[in-house]
Each structure stands twice: as C-alpha cells, then as structure tokens.
C-alpha cells in the first residue's frame, strides 16, 4: 500500500525457509476471555528472521507483539500453525534464547550483581569468572555503583538496565527484546543501543526487537515488521538498507533514514488509527 | 465452671470407660432400664481420663462418677470430700501379668531389675504394683515403672519387651492370655485372691458423688443406690453369658467369646449387694499411704469416704 523506496524495500510474506533462525509459520493464537469466549490475539501470523538478522516489530499497543515473542520462547503455544527456532519446533523453553521481558522479571532477593551473574552461574561458569563478567556488564550499563543494591532499591530505568545486563551476559544467539529501552532517557538509550549493536555484530545473533519508537526501529533494524491492530497479523515488512555499522547518535540526521521513517510511519499511522477506532467499539 | 449445676431431674454420671468390664454395672443398669424404673433421667458420659471425671465432679458439672474408690481417699488429702455410695467391686479386677518371654519371674519378688507396666504414674495400678513389690521384700528403685496406658499400647509394650510384667484389666488380660504372650502372676479379680495378694479386700470400682451433694439430694442418691443395687443383684444371679447379652455389641466387637470368658473370670469381683467390704477402706489407705506423696503426713478420715446408708436402705 505504500510506495517502496530503495532503502526500505517492502517484502511480501512467504513461507519461511527451513534454515531461518526464527520461523513463525501461519500461527493463530487464541485466549479464553473472562466471559468464556475465545479471543484471537494473533492471526495467520508469518514471520522469518534469518541467522544474524536484526528484526524490529512495531505496531499499535495490544496488537500482539509480546505474544509473538512469547511464542518464540515457548512460553505460549500456538493454537494452530508452527513456530521453529533454528529449524527445530519449539517444544519447551529454550536456553539459547535471550529475552528481555516487557515487565520486570528480576529476582528481588538477589542483588544487582547476583542477578546479572545468574545466567553464567546457571550455565555452569565458575563463580569467580561469572562474577567478573557480571561486574563488567554492570559497568557497561552504567551501574557500577549499585552492584550490591537489591532491585527494589533501584529506579525503574536502573532495573531495566540490570535486566539488559542479565540477558546480554549470556551472549545469546537469539535475542528477543520487548520494549527494552522505553524507560531510559535518550542519552542512556543511545548508549544501550550501541551496546546492543556491538553485541549483535560480535555474536552474529538474530534479534527480534519490539519498540514503539519507530525511529529506533529503523535505526537498528535490517527488517521492520509492521503489525495490524489486534488481532495482530503482519501488515507489511520493510527491509532497511542503511549501511552498517550505524552510529546511533548520528543516524537520525541521515537523509535516507528520515525518508524511510516517514514511509513506514505513514503505513503504521493508518493501522494505529484503525486500532483506536476499533478499541472504542464494545464487544469483540 | 464451678457452679453446682444439679438440674432437678437430669443426672449426669461420668464413667471412666463405659466399655470396661470393671465399670460394667453402670451401662448394665442403663441397659436393664433400672434408672427409668426409679424415675431417674440419667445420662452416662464417657471419659477415660480419671482426673477429668473427678475434676468435673468437683466443679459441679456432673453429679456422679463411676471410678476407683481410691480417688476418694486421695482427694480427701487435698481437702475435697467425695463419697462412694455404691461399691461395685471388692477386688481391683487388676491382674499382674508377666510376659511369656520372662519365665524367670515367678512372683513379685523377682521384679528386681525389671520394667513394670502401669497405666499411668500415680494411678491405682502404680500404687498396687509398688505395693506388691514392697510386700515381697523389694525396695522402690529395685524396679522401674513405665506408664504404658491400657489396651493396645499395653499389649504392644509386652510384645516389644519394653515391659517384663505389668498390671492391667479386662479385656487386655483375656487378649494376652489367649495369644499366650503373657501369664497371670498375681490375680486380683476375685476377693479371695486379692486378700491373698494384698492382705485384705480392695474396694475398687464404685459410684461416688460429692459429699455436699448428698446433703441436698438425699432422694436422688437413694434412687441411684436402688438402681445400682438392683444391678449388682442381677449380676450375682445371672451368668456371664446372660450379662454379656445385655451389653451393646460394640463392647465385645466381634469376639463375644473372649468377652464372656473375661467376664466369667472377673464376675466374682463384684459385690453382691453394693455394700463396702468392711476392711476394704483400710487396705486402700495402707496401699496408698505407702507410696502416694500427697497422703504422707495427712490424717484421713475413712468414714467420710464412703457411706452404706443408701445401700442399706435400698429395696
């Protein structure tokens, strides 16, 4: 429906190839609502993330972005359709995945450093080494002074950064992030984006990144998925051809960037408006 | 609590174990309808812990207790006056059993070093056991007493050899004799054998009330005595079998023969007319004062522990 600029190539959805890192194939997921009916959260959903690819997902609130990530982790099972990770059907919660939850999921009884060291310790890294790496990551997210604090003694943005360090330290091959930077101020956010891109290019991970900030999506991604208002399905997919490496502080002023953002923005706005008008109706 | 709640028409009597043969006259009276015949509305309450029964009686919540006579003596030493008005038995109905594993114990004189089972410390079985031992020349400390309760726990203690001998009542006696796990060492189920063992009659199961209650309830006391005396006469004139037939089935639970057999062996302990045997109270005092700390140095007036007035007047 949108014109396709060279930089933001609009793709047509196709059955996912077998070797994709993440392949969601024609998935529908329904929840039981409080009045006993079924509610479709996502519908006929198809999405592919190749190995080493950075995919961003944008869409109106409540359209099923978090649900999609939960499908990939195995926390939710599709009603119909298949989800594959690294070619294997998702049957249980995978250890190869890194997942930054939308809400807080830190362990309140562990201090910051114990929270961050949890992953390596679970995976059998020797204690001293795990704590060294944890200390390193805590410094990278700018919390060196707060190593010994417990989560409730941190501010919202600090907690989010602990969660980021906790996930990044595991160097996951597949990284799912649900609005990870929304509680951060612009400057800290940019620093975190740089960390993320650094980690990504170093590990050649596959990333799915959910955000409401379209500019962030365009700045980071190889591919942007625009979802329709709930029940969510893929409205359009854009390939972002901005050159890498990208420097977050500067890319926003890139002419090509502005152009791409505008195209996707128009596409998205249409959808958001639709979602809103629907939200105002009563009934399902 | 401590209010004298003597409802005019309803009389509550606590029985220290309704299914026990030594207290059989209580339920039997009820079963035979003798209370009703006297125009009494009697309610029997079960309480296996003797102390509970006495406390209730003293607190005035019940009018009478069917229990061991020796409590009247013991309580007098603590300044509480209760009286036996009908005496059910003139022998304790207890038997000192010895485990079949210990044939070397042939008399209480062989108790040295043994562990002896009693139902509870400070109970009648405690005093009787000690008395038997001392009468046979032992000193306290030569033997150990172990409270094991009655019934199953007593049997288990014998089986597991935790006690070498012990004192208990029917139907525990019958059960252990039947399986051959124990033999009778000292039999105190009949007046004769009791005299032999203790040197006198030993009045045990009785019906007692607060002395103060008698004063204000002479009429009820008399009617109760009438009913119980009738029952004592019934027991004396009927066979164990016939008596057992009157009892609720639950009390002999599937093994009536055993019940009858026990009753036949123990029937002789009951007084024929509910009267206190003449030398009985002395024997009890003798046994108690030897061992019970609370009796030491106390003057007991035995005449205030029982009365035969009502039994004498019973028709």
């Amino acid at each position: 429906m949108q014109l396709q600029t060279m930089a933001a190539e609009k793709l047509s959805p196709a059955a996912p190839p077998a070797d994709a890192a993440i392949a969601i194939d024609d998935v529908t997921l329904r929840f039981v609502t409080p009045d006993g009916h079924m509610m479709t959260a996502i519908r006929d959903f198809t999405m592919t993330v190749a190995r080493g690819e950075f995919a961003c997902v944008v869409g109106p609130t409540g359209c099923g972005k978090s649900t999609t990530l939960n499908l990939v982790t195995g926390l939710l099972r599709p009603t119909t359709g298949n989800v594959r990770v690294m070619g294997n059907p998702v049957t249980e919660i995978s250890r190869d995945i890194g997942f930054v939850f939308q809400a807080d999921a830190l362990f309140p009884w562990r201090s910051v450093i114990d929270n961050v060291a949890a992953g390596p310790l679970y995976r059998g890294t020797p204690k001293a080494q795990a704590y060294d790496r944890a200390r390193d990551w805590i410094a990278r997210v700018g919390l060196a002074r707060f190593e010994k604090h417990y989560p409730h003694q941190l501010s919202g943005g600090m907690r989010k950064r602990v969660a980021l360090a906790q996930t990044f330290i595991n160097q996951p091959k597949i990284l799912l992030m649900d609005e990870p930077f929304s509680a951060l101020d612009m400057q800290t956010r940019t620093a975190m984006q740089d960390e993320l891109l650094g980690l990504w290019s170093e590990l050649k991970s596959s990333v799915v990144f959910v955000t409401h900030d379209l500019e962030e999506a365009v700045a980071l991604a190889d591919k942007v998925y625009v979802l329709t208002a709930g029940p969510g399905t893929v409205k359009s997919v854009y390939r972002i051809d901005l050159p890498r490496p990208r420097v977050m502080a500067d890319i926003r002023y890139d002419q090509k960037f502005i152009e791409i953002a505008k195209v996707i923005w128009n596409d998205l706005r249409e959808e958001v408006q639709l979602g809103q008008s629907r939200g105002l109706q009563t009934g399902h | 609590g401590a209010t004298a709640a003597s409802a005019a028409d309803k009389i509550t009597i606590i029985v220290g174990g309704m299914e026990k043969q030594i207290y059989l006259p209580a339920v039997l009276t009820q079963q035979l309808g003798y209370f009703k015949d006297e125009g009494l509305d009697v309610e029997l309450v079960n309480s296996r812990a003797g102390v509970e029964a006495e406390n209730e009686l003293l607190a005035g919540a019940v009018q009478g207790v069917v229990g061991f006579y020796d409590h009247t003596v013991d309580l007098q030493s603590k300044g509480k006056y209760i009286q036996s008005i009908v005496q059910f038995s003139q022998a304790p109905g207890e038997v000192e059993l010895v485990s079949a594993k210990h044939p070397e114990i042939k008399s209480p004189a062989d108790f040295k070093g043994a562990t002896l089972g009693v139902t509870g410390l400070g109970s009648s079985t405690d005093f009787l056991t000690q008395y038997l031992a001392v009468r046979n020349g032992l000193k306290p400390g030569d033997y150990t007493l172990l409270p094991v309760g009655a019934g199953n726990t007593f049997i288990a203690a014998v089986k597991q050899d935790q006690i070498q001998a012990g004192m208990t009542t029917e139907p525990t006696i019958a059960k252990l004799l039947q399986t051959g796990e124990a033999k009778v060492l000292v039999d105190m189920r009949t007046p004769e054998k009791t005299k032999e063992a203790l040197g006198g009659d030993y009045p045990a199961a009785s019906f007692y009330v607060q002395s103060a209650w008698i004063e204000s309830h002479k009429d009820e006391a008399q009617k109760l005595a009438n009913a119980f005396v009738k029952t004592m006469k019934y027991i004396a004139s009927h066979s164990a079998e016939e008596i057992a037939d009157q009892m609720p089935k639950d009390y002999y639970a599937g093994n009536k023969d055993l019940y009858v057999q026990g009753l036949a062996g123990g029937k002789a302990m009951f007084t024929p007319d509910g009267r206190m045997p003449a030398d009985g109270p002395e024997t009890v005092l003798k046994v108690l004062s030897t061992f019970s700390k609370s009796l030491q140095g106390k003057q007991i007036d035995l005449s205030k522990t029982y009365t035969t007035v009502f039994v004498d007047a019973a028709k």
Partner: protein
Amino acid sequence: MTAISPASDQAARATSIVAAEARARARLRRRHALVIGLRLAILIVFLALWELGADYGVIDPFFFSSPSGIWEQIWSWVTEGTSQGPLWLQIYVTLEETFLGFAIGAVGGIAAGIVLGRNKLLADVFSIYIKIANSVPRVVLGSVFIIALGLGMASKVALAVVMVFFVVFANAFQGVREADRAMIANAQILGASPYQITATVIIPSAMSWILASLHVSFGFALVGAVVGEFLGAKQGMGLLISTAQGAFNANGVFAAMIILAVMALVVEFIITRFENYVVKWRPAPFNEQGT
C-alpha cells in the same frame, strides 16, 4: 499486504482452529481421566496390599485391622447403628462441633492476623503471647476446657478452635504483611479509608495465604473435636473411637477414621470450590494458557 485468502481458505482455517480447540479440550478430558485413574489405582493397590498383608499375617489385623474388617464394621454401623445410637448422629455431632470450632477459629485467626498484620505496635506487643499460647499442649488445654466449660459441646468446640486459630492466624498475619506495598499505596491515593484498604486490598492479597491455612486447618478442627470427645462425651466419632479402642476393636477404630477422612474430603471439596471461585482472577502458569 496480507495475502487476502479466498473464502474457502478462510472457512478451512476456521475449521482448523475449531479442530485445534477440540483437541485441546480432549487433552484436558484425558488428563482428568488419568488423574482419577491414578488415584483409584493407588487406592486399590494400597487396600489390596493391606488386605493381603492382613490375610498372610504380615500385618496384624488385631492392631491394624484390614479393609474387609473395616468395611464390615462400617456396614454394621450403618445398618444396625452403634452402641451410642445411629451412625449419622455421631457424624452429625462431630461435624457440628468441628464446623463451629472451625468457623470460630478461622474467623478469629483471620481477624487477629489482619489486626496484628496491619498494626505493627500491636503485633510487636501481642505476638509473643500468641506464640506462648501456641506452645500449650492441646491435650492439657482439653482438660482445662472441660473444667471451665463442662463436658458439653462447648469444650470440644473450644478445642477445635485452638487447633485452628494458630495456623490461620500465622498465615493471615504473614499474608497481610506480604501485601504489595505499591498496591496499598495506590488504593490509599485513590481515596480508600484504612477499612477499605483492608477489605479491598489486604484481604484479597492475603486470600491465598488464608485459603492455604483453611485447607490444612479443617483437618485440625476435626482432630480437635475428636480429641475433645475422647476426653469425655456422650456422642460423637471420638467416643466411637475411644470405645472401639477400649474394646480392642481395631476395625472400629479404623472405620471411624475412614469416616472422618470422608468428612474431611467433603469439606475439602467445598473449600476448593470456594477457592476456585475466589481466585478466578489468577493467571494460569505459562504453557497452561491459550489452548
């Protein structure tokens, strides 16, 4: 840019969702059947081993009874009544004491837990006395109650109350203290009075704590009532057990216990129903969600 699927495809998709959901329901039914099956299997194996053990002398039925003996006993009680009167009357008497004791103990425990949980000073001052009270042996308390309250229903109820109270209190107290502080603050700011906070935030938060304690404490109330009857009674399951014990009737003892267990299960079922109703807002664990 979604491929607009032709109508027939749409229909096929709808069918496949319906089919998937039917499969999920069937899975649930199968699981339910499995649970029931396993429960029965365990019960049967247990009873069979017991019966055989009794038959072959491994277990002495004189002490430990046997399933067939228990059954005969129950049957005779049902058809012929017990020595104390009809069986249902015994059950009724014990149930009445238990329910009263349970209700008083639970309400008291919840109330005390909430009051002390909400007021730190009261908690600091009084919790030590509650702890002292909890260390008093119930059997001794039983005698004290009988002296103070007589041999009627009151003393059994009181015994059931003290069995229930402490468990419920401990949980209600801790449940109140665990209530989320942000949620309490939110209610306060939204305009809730202390009483409203207690009713709409504290109690719902503490509900799973309270319910957990109710589950275990109904059994305790039953035990309290039975022990009370043991110490002295005219009627009731406790007296039935006591008589059976005195008469060496192991069948009777175990039969009475089975009847008590059935009573407990019936009430347990009711509590669980209530629980499901009260906590229907709860998220299912991940993976049990969706269909």
